[in-house]
């Protein structure tokens, strides 16, 4: 369990307190999402867990032990970390990138190889094809898959993810959200995930903490947050994004599209109309999966019809 007790963070060149009396607990095996607008202190909170940022006062503990009492290197070797801009090491092959922590942990060559192969397979990248490639030969989505694999390779108890999908296109983002949900279900790890996207938070998080200006506005399970927003800010933050991001479900429900006999889809019905519009710019139609696992074909016409109706 990770616990924050009366944690403050003040940057020297800034009068505002970045984190103001933060108290929270992250349970083992949780999928914990920190969500909030920019400047809310969510990334600062995440980076205080692996001591990339040092708190000004207060105490952070892991399993009851103050993180300052851990050997920094050993502690970090036991944590996975996924960065927003992926940051695969461009001079190393995919396999070497993945096994960088296991190598520091002095795992045998066979064991490292095995882990890289297993995990690549798990995230849908053919190891024989990808392991020996360099990062710049991969697409953004593929690279972040490797970024996730790299964070899982040392079989850590805690994995920290700092807005890992915000730089990706809607298709990749959607696929990767599914992937981390699957990985979290299969592996016994605590995921701490930072995002500014409320929809992503609701889709991924078991526990969601909403932050603003260094304060915790509300913390609770997904249902509590969705059904009982504590104050206007939470409600507004949620609503705003809900309104901004209209769901494709609406188009599918209006029957303004055809069902097709496919398994793979580009988007899910939980994705936004803006994602659809983005994709239609580069392809003729988009395949969307609805919650009952049926796949629908949406065209520019469907989008226009929807918008026309919406204007009524």
């Amino acid at each position: 369990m990770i616990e924050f007790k009366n944690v403050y963070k003040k940057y020297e060149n800034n009068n505002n307190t970045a984190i103001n009396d933060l108290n929270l607990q992250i349970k083992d095996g949780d999928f914990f999402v920190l969500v909030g607008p920019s400047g809310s202190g969510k990334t600062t909170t995440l980076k205080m867990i692996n001591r990339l940022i040092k708190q000004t006062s207060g105490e952070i503990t892991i399993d009851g032990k103050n993180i300052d009492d851990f050997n920094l290197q050993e502690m970090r070797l036991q944590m996975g970390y996924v960065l927003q801009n992926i940051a695969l090491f461009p001079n190393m092959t995919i396999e070497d990138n993945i096994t960088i922590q296991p190598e520091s942990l002095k795992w045998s060559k066979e064991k490292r190889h095995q882990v890289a192969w297993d995990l690549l397979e798990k995230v849908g990248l053919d190891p024989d094809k990808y392991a020996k490639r360099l990062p710049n030969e991969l697409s953004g989505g593929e690279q972040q898959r490797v970024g996730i694999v790299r964070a899982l390779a040392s079989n850590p108890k805690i994995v920290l993810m700092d807005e890992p999908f915000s730089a990706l296109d809607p298709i990749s983002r959607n696929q990767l959200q599914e992937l981390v949900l699957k990985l979290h279900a299969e592996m016994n790890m605590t995921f701490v995930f930072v995002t500014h996207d409320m929809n992503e938070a609701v889709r991924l998080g078991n526990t969601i903490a909403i932050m603003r200006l260094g304060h915790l506005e509300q913390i609770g399970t997904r249902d509590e947050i969705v059904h009982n927003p504590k104050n206007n800010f939470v409600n507004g933050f949620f609503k705003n994004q809900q309104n901004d991001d209209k769901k494709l479900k609406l188009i599918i429900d209006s029957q303004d599209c055809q069902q097709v006999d496919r398994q793979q889809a580009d988007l899910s019905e939980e994705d936004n109309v803006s994602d659809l519009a983005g994709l239609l710019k580069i392809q003729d139609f988009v395949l969307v999966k609805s919650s009952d696992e049926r796949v629908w074909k949406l065209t520019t016409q469907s989008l226009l019809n929807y918008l026309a109706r919406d204007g009524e």
Partner: protein
Amino acid sequence: MSGIIHIFKTQGNDILNSIGQHISISLVSLLIAAVIAIPLAILLMRHKRAAEFILNVTSVLQTIPSLALLGILIPLVGIGTVPSVIALVVYAVMPIFQNTYSGLTTIDPNLEEAAEAFGLSRSKKLLKIEIPLAMPMIISGLRIAMVMIIGTATLAALIGAGGLGTYILLGIETNNNSLLIVGAVLSAILALIFSALIRGISKLSLRKIGIILATLVVLVGGVAGYRVIAQPKTTITIAGKMGSEPEILINMYKDLIEQDNPNIKVTTKANFGGTSFLYKALKSGSIDIYPEFTGTVLESLVKTKKGATHDPEATYELAKKLLKSQEDLEYLKPMKYENGYAWWLRRVSLRNII
């Protein structure tokens, strides 16, 4: 052009020797400079102020003209290869240090953060990430340094370290453009070849580069060590000034001495340098004998109010006396061979004079 071909036909071996000397001086200098500059940059990569101080120091060193630097070094370390290598190292440190330093300090901060967050040790971070990522910059620093070294190394001939500069100096002194071109073009070609070689090396992995460097160090060290060990006990070094007459003379001496006493090994250093370099070398013991004009001794080497006279005998006696008293040097008897001058004039000029 036919002059150049003639030079290659008649002096092919000497040219090869000079190229060898040139390459070994340059490589040794580059290696020493790299061994100083690269670790220094790694040490200082997190200390911006110290790094900038070093950068300023190396930049100042860079502004000293190479001739002046060689001049400063002669009284300190004598003549020959050592001062040449020191001077070249002084020049090469700055581009290597600067490039290594900026290569290491301009790595994407996200990659630094990632390495930090994964808990990599300082050395692992350096070897696996920072140095490989800075490698292109380090290599380009080495290339700049190498081209500079090969160019500047032509001046080493001035202080008796040999190399391709010998041909340039000789060409200037004897008004032989073909020789000058041979020296200049060959050193330019060497610079191009080595620049390309270093670029080739940069494509290899860090481990292979290490192996190549280690092999080079062992080779260069081995050759130098062999030379020291292999030198026989009694060696007499005879040097000559620039030009063909001194070279003929010193080889005649060599033959005569070795005929007289086969246990003595005589090494000759033809085209060793200008008058003052040879004189300093003689005084410092770097060479044992060199042929010198009696007139030159009186005019430029010893301190005297009287100049040379028209009487060869009297001039020799005076020069011998002064060399003995002032520098404790022995001036051997003049040879039968005498160097005289003749005047060539056009008929028109002659008429004007008369």
